[in-house]
Each structure stands twice: as structure tokens, then as C-alpha cells.
């Protein structure tokens, strides 16, 4: 009797599961979910770093009376992409519009989670955006998201420490100059920068190899080529960083975004950073004691006279394929990234990717309240002018892996060994490449390792 009951219960449980699984595998094959462009209730997932989303959405709703937008603050980029992949796997509960970090866009585009925005004519907007963020959001030469911000890699330095070492930050034009400066700064007890090879250093790493012209990952449909060490750009990056590690010119013990990191930025132990243009606000809060000392300059170049930039971070808005209101959703995306919303975002602290805003007078106007505060921290320098110049510099094409979150989280596992001097950087990157290849094969790609 009791056994029978058990069997009944187990069967019921299995039946429920099969039901769940059936939901899970139901694929969405309709591409005609455009819906009414003027009338819809949209769900929007994203984070709100400028604390201004509510106001911007209200303005959008005023301009488009038929559309309402429900904003769900999903907290961080990582949580958002996790929630989105769960919702897509479940086949329901997905938002209409989603905010994603640029490198994760490809992952969702490959797995058919996002709408190709050229259906709505987004491909024609290419020239309106800075090249760096725009290039990152293309898959098969089609835009799958529009950038809301950008993060050109910049060179931030602490002038007080540089002065003490007798180095002029403005005169650092190439990475060779940087190396010479590193030696002088090390002699004063500080480090020119920190490099620890943890997952927090992954983004600056990709930005730096990008600028070096490296192409470590090439994705062509279902084929991936991984070339972490033999590529010419990777070679010059490896040689350069290995030299910094060997000669104890960089702080290899302090990972980015750690508590120690903020403290060392604040007490001058770390004298400079190469990081995205969104850094000023973080410096102002993380290193308040150094107010007036930090400066920003263009990224050092690999060859003299070049003006090559690279991107570090940045986020974008995409339309989810499961949405039944794709046309209205695109309207919202367009408003936020290309329309009036973009200006409002820029006004509340987002570093813009729209050329129109980057080139506008108000963006570099030193008398606005926001600009004045930042410029004061940077010793009176017109910060946005320098940043805007970097944003409009040309960038090479660069491809992330379609499984970028995995590449980021496991970067530290392998590469940090080079910074603790267990193995060489070349060896560490070879191991890392192997691990990435394994993941690619697990995901069904045909991977070639060079």
C-alpha cells in the first residue's frame, strides 16, 4: 500500500518535470512578433547606475502615449544576463527590452535570443555612433543591440606621484615611454600600476590586446580559432607585460576592484591606470584623498604617431526575440540610445557613445555642475574633452568569444599564475587558450587552437 503511494507520488513528480521540460524546450520560431509599434506594455530589464531611469522612462511615455514601460532593476550586468538566459531557456518570463554588457550581446545573438535590429533599420545608424562600441555589437555584420554608453580605454595618472619621480605624464606617448616611466616610479617606492591577472583584470586585458592589434579569437559561424600567443599583437603584448613582471615594475598582488586597490589608489601606491573612460566617478569616490592630483591622457601607443584606441566595458540595449511587442520595444531602444533619452542619460553621468553628444558643446562645457565637479578632482583639467577625443579615435575590429562570461570568470584561474611567477605569461595564456577551446567544444563549436 505504502509502496503504491510512493510510486504514485514519484510518477506525479516525474509528470510535472516532463511538463516543465516541455516548457523548457519549446522553441520560438515565429519571427513575426512585431506587434503594434504604437501600443504596448513593455517590460525592460536593466540596471540604473545614473539613478535616472524613472525620469527618462516617464519622458518616453509622454512622447509615446500608447506605450508603457515597466522597469525591473536587475542590479548588475552579470545578474541580468543570468536571468535573461534562464528566461529564454524557460521560454517565458523574458523582458521585451534588455540591457546587456557589450561582450555578452554576441552570446545571446548566437543562441537566437535577440532580434536582429536591422529589421527595424538600425543598421543605418552606424555612422551616428562611435566606432568602438558599435563594432562590438555586430554579429554576422548585423546589429543586435544599440550602445547606450562606451568606454574608450584611457590613461589615468597621479600627477603628484609622477612629479616626485620626475616623470611628465603628458610626455608618455608610447608603451616604451611608459616602461621608462615605470622604472622611475618604482624607484620612489610606488608602482606605475597594478596587474594581477584576476577576473577583474580581464576587461583591461582585452582592451590592451585589442589596442595592440591582436586577434586572439576569431569567430566564424560555428568555427572558432583561438590564437593566444602566436598572433603578432599578442606577441608584443606578452613581451611587454612579461618585462614589467620580471623587473618588478607592476604591483602583481592587488587585483582590480578589491579593497586594497582603492586604498592604494588613495594613498598613491598605484600611480596610474589604463582603464575605461567611465573611471573618473570611481576615482572620485574610491580615492578622495588624491583630489586634485589625478589627470587623464590618451592611451600610450605601440608605435609612435599612432592614434589607436580600444574599448573597455560599455553596455547596450537589445530587443528579446520572445517579445510580442518587438516594434514598440525597438522604439524604446532607439529613444534611449539614439533619441532624446541618450542626452538625458549623458546628462546623468553615462559616458555617451553617440557622436552627436560627444561633439556637442555642452558635453565639454566646464561650467556645468557635473563637469565642474569632475574637473576640480582632476586639477582643473577639462576631462570630457580628453575622453571625447579618445571616443572618436579609430579602433581595430575585435571579436570576443561568444561565451565571453566564461572567458572572463576563468581568466584568473590560468593567467594569474604568470603574475605570481609560477609560469611565464606565454605559458599561462597557452593554458588559458586550451581551456577556452575546451569550453568552445563543449558548446558545440569547432575549435582550432594555434
Amino acid at each position, binding site marked *: 500500500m505504502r509502496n503504491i503511494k510512493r510510486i504514485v507520488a514519484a510518477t506525479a513528480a516525474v509528470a510535472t*518535470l516532463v511538463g516543465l521540460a516541455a516548457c523548457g524546450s519549446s522553441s520560438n520560431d515565429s519571427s513575426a512578433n512585431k506587434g503594434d509599434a504604437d501600443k504596448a506594455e513593455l517590460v525592460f530589464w536593466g540596471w540604473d547606475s545614473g539613478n535616472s531611469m524613472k525620469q527618462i522612462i516617464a519622458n518616453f511615455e509622454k512622447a509615446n502615449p500608447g506605450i508603457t514601460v515597466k522597469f525591473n532593476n536587475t542590479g548588475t550586468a552579470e545578474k541580468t544576463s543570468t536571468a535573461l538566459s534562464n528566461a529564454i*531557456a524557460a521560454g517565458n518570463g523574458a523582458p521585451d527590452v534588455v540591457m546587456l554588457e557589450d561582450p555578452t550581446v554576441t552570446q545571446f545573438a548566437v543562441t537566437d535570443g535577440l532580434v536582429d535590429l536591422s529589421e527595424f533599420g538600425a543598421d543605418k545608424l552606424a555612422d551616428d555612433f562611435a566606432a568602438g562600441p558599435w563594432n562590438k555589437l555586430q554579429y554576422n555584420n548585423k546589429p543586435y543591440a544599440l550602445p547606450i554608453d562606451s568606454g574608450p580605454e584611457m590613461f589615468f595618472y597621479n600627477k603628484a606621484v609622477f612629479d616626485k619621480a620626475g616623470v611628465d605624464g603628458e610626455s608618455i606617448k608610447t608603451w616604451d615611454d611608459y616602461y621608462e616611466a615605470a622604472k622611475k616610479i618604482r624607484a620612489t617606492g610606488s608602482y606605475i600600476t597594478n596587474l594581477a591577472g584576476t577576473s577583474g583584470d580581464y576587461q583591461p586585458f582585452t582592451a590592451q590586446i585589442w589596442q595592440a592589434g591582436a586577434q586572439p579569437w576569431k569567430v566564424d559561424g560555428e568555427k572558432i580559432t583561438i590564437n593566444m600567443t602566436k598572433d603578432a599583437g599578442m606577441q608584443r603584448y606578452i613581451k611587454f607585460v612579461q618585462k614589467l613582471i620580471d623587473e618588478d615594475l607592476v604591483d602583481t598582488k592587488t587585483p582590480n576592484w578589491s*579593497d586594497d586597490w582603492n586604498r*592604494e589608489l588613495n594613498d598613491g601606491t598605484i600611480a596610474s591606470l589604463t582603464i575605461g573612460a567611465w573611471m573618473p566617478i570611481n576615482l572620485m569616490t574610491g580615492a578622495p584623498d588624491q583630489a586634485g592630483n589625478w589627470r587623464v591622457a590618451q592611451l600610450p601607443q605601440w608605435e609612435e604617431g599612432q592614434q589607436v584606441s580600444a574599448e573597455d566595458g560599455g553596455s547596450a540595449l537589445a530587443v528579446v526575440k520572445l517579445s510580442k511587442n518587438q516594434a514598440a520595444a525597438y522604439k524604446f531602444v532607439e529613444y534611449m540610445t539614439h533619441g532624446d533619452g541618450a542626452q538625458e542619460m549623458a546628462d546623468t553621468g553615462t559616458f555617451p557613445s553617440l557622436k552627436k553628444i560627444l561633439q556637442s558643446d555642452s558635453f565639454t562645457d566646464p561650467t556645468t555642475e557635473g563637469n565642474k565637479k569632475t574637473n576640480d578632482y582632476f586639477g582643473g583639467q577639462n576631462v570630457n574633452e580628453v575622453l571625447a577625443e579618445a571616443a572618436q579615435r579609430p579602433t581595430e575590429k575585435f571579436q570576443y568569444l561568444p561565451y565571453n562570461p566564461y572567458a572572463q570568470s576563468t581568466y*584568473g584561474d590560468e593567467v594569474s599564475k604568470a603574475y605570481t611567477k609560477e609560469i611565464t605569461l606565454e605559458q599561462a595564456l597557452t593554458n588559458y587558450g586550451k581551456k577556452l577551446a575546451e*569550453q568552445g567544444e563543449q558548446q*558545440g563549436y569547432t575549435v582550432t587552437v594555434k
Partner: protein
Amino acid sequence: MSASSATTAGVTGPDVRHSATARVNKHKADWRGWKFMWPFALVFIFVFIIPICYAIYISFFKKQMIGGTKFVGFENYARLLGDTQFWSSVGRVALFTCVQVPIMLFLAAMMALALDSMKLHGTKFFRISTFLPYAVPAVVSTLIWGFVYGAKYGLVGSLNDVLGTNLDLFAPNILLASIGNIVTWEFTGYNMLIFYSSLSTIPHSLYEAASIDGASEWQIVKSIKLPELKGSLAITVIFSIIGSFQLFNEPSILQNMVPGNAITTYYTPNMYAYNLSFSGNQSNYAAALAITMAVITMAIAYAVQLNSMKEQMK
């Protein structure tokens, strides 16, 4: 009204028949028990049985970015057998368990005995304050300890400055011990309380009899108190083994505080499963890992229990 009368009828019904046939009543009693069970059973099935069945179910599939989801049978389990990262993480928590659990339980037993000796002043204060760390969320206590351990700006750093030493508790080769210290701090009080409560069930007449027989304090501990602790020892050992095999909070919080990357994404089995499913897009493989870990943990807990039952039979 009708409902209540129906209930009454339901309850009295079997009672009436009770005198007639005892065998029928036995079955009826079974069903009656289920009526009380259902609120629990419902929750239990939904939050425990179904998720586990679901995890087992998805562990037989493989979801790929290219190719979608397909049935692969035991492939995930086979892959797990040869996964060196997985076994290194299992080895790490096994080592952790072998060292940390005995130390923690020894300390807990000592504290319980000390509290129970009635010779301490401020017993209540002592009892509460040793238990307090258990009430602090693991995330908070790990952060606190992380700041203490910091070799540059933490308490350890300040000590190094004063004493001129070069101690680094975050060094990769002693990091596991540092985590062990945090866990010991968190859970000693909890285990102490289990020991203490089992000690307090000993009737005082036993102590009186012992002292009339001229037993010393040490003999009382050895012959009365320690045997009493054996039963609760089995429970605490099982809890602690399960707890340390599931180690997750402490290492993942410390990950960003430790210089370099001494805490990898596969530092413990749970961290590995987390990383595989949330950044590696391999939730099926992670499910297989979770099931395997559950089986390993259950096997160990079962072995401990069998062993302790044998001990008690003696």
C-alpha cells in the same frame, strides 16, 4: 457547519469500527497520519523532491550554444570522472574536513564541558557570546575576517608593521587554514550548544552517586559525560561534514580580497558548479556534479552514522 460535522464523522467513524476489527483500524490510522502530514509533504515535495528529480533529469542532457539541447545519457557523469578540476576541488574540501572538523568539535566539546562544570562565573554570558558568531551571516563574518587578515591594510598588516614580521595569511599555501579558522569561529558555538544540551540531560543523581563513590572530577567527565556526548558527536560530525563539503560563501567572498588568484573558480565543488552553470552555460553538467557530490556526501555521512551506531551497540 457541515464541514465540521463531516470532520467529526471522519474522526469518529474509524473509532466506532475500532472495537470491531483492529486490522482495518491500522490502515485507517495510516491515512489519518497523512492528513497531518500534507502541509509538510506538499512543501517537501515542491521544494525538495521535485528540484532533486529535476536536477537528476537535466543531468542526462547537454545544452549547447550550437546544436541546442540533446539527450546524452551518462556522458556528463563520465566526463566528471575524468575532470581533474572537479577532483582537485573534492580533494580540497576533503582535506579541509579532515583537519577543520576535528579541531572545531574538540573545541566545542571542551567549551561545553567547561560550561557544564558549574565552576565558571558568568556561564550565561559565556554561552551566549560563544554562540553569537553563528548568528552573524557568513558573508559578514567573512568580510570581517578578510579585513583582519589583510597583509597590507588589515590587522595582520598592522601587526607586521609593529613586529617587523612578514606574515601573510592569504598566501596560497595557508589560505585553506585561514578559511578553516573563519569556519571554526562561525560554527564552534553552534556545536557547543548541541553538546551542552546533551550534557544537561544527564540526571544530577548520577553525579551525586559518583561523588559518593569518591570519583574525581576527571573520572566523572571520563565515565559519565564523555559517553553521553557520543550520541551528539555523531550528529555534529555529520552536520559538519555536510557543511564543509558545501563550502561556498567564505571562499567566494574572499576571492576578491585575496591577492593574486589563489581562490580559483573551482576552489570547492559548489563554486565549480556555480561557475559552470552561471558563467559557463553548462547547467546540465553542473547538475551532474551536484548529484555526484550529494551521493559522495551521503555515502560519507552514512558511513559515519553506521560507525557510530556500531559504537553505541557495544
